[in-house]
């Protein structure tokens, strides 16, 4: 399957997880490739 690759710099941000912990996105992707899945809504 052909995928369209891009090389755009990802935007870092401080985020809050559902367990209340704060994290920087950068710290996630530095650990390994990150698939960020934005949902439409919870439900």
């Amino acid at each position, binding site marked *: *399957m052909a*995928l*369209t*690759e*891009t*090389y*755009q*710099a*990802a*935007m*870092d*941000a401080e*985020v*809050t*997880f*559902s*367990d*209340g912990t704060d994290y920087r*996105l*950068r710290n*996630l*992707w*530095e*650990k*390994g*490739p*990150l*698939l*960020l*899945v*934005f*949902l*439409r*809504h*919870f*439900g």
Partner: protein
Amino acid sequence: MQLHRSKTQFEEMGLQVVLVGLGTPDRAEAFRKQFFLSFPIICDPEKKLYQTYGLGRSSVTRLASPAFLLKGLKALSRGYTPSMPRGDVMQLPGVFLIDTAGNIRYAHYSKDPSDNPTIETLLALKDIIRKEKKVWSSINDQT
């Protein structure tokens, strides 16, 4: 949720899957329990991350389109039972693969609320990840 059924395959790819939702932590935890999810969930009730990643909003016309309604019916026939949505139902979803150097290597901006990449497309991201691993191992070999 189809994504969750492929969790093992994502783990084998070495991919961290993180969900982002509009709700509060309480709502996210209820959602996690409802769908038996074990992926981490980022809560973004103010849509700051959605905006940072350039995700837009849908329109009433698209929500009422026959194509969207048909997709909804198909989901219902597969056993999906939606609960009352909370947050902005017009918000469009999206998916991004970010490599360890902080580059977006794959981006899917949904054109309408039901426009999501197939699970096959997401699993095919292993080719991009494999390529990245080769580059890093060749850099490490040179040093």
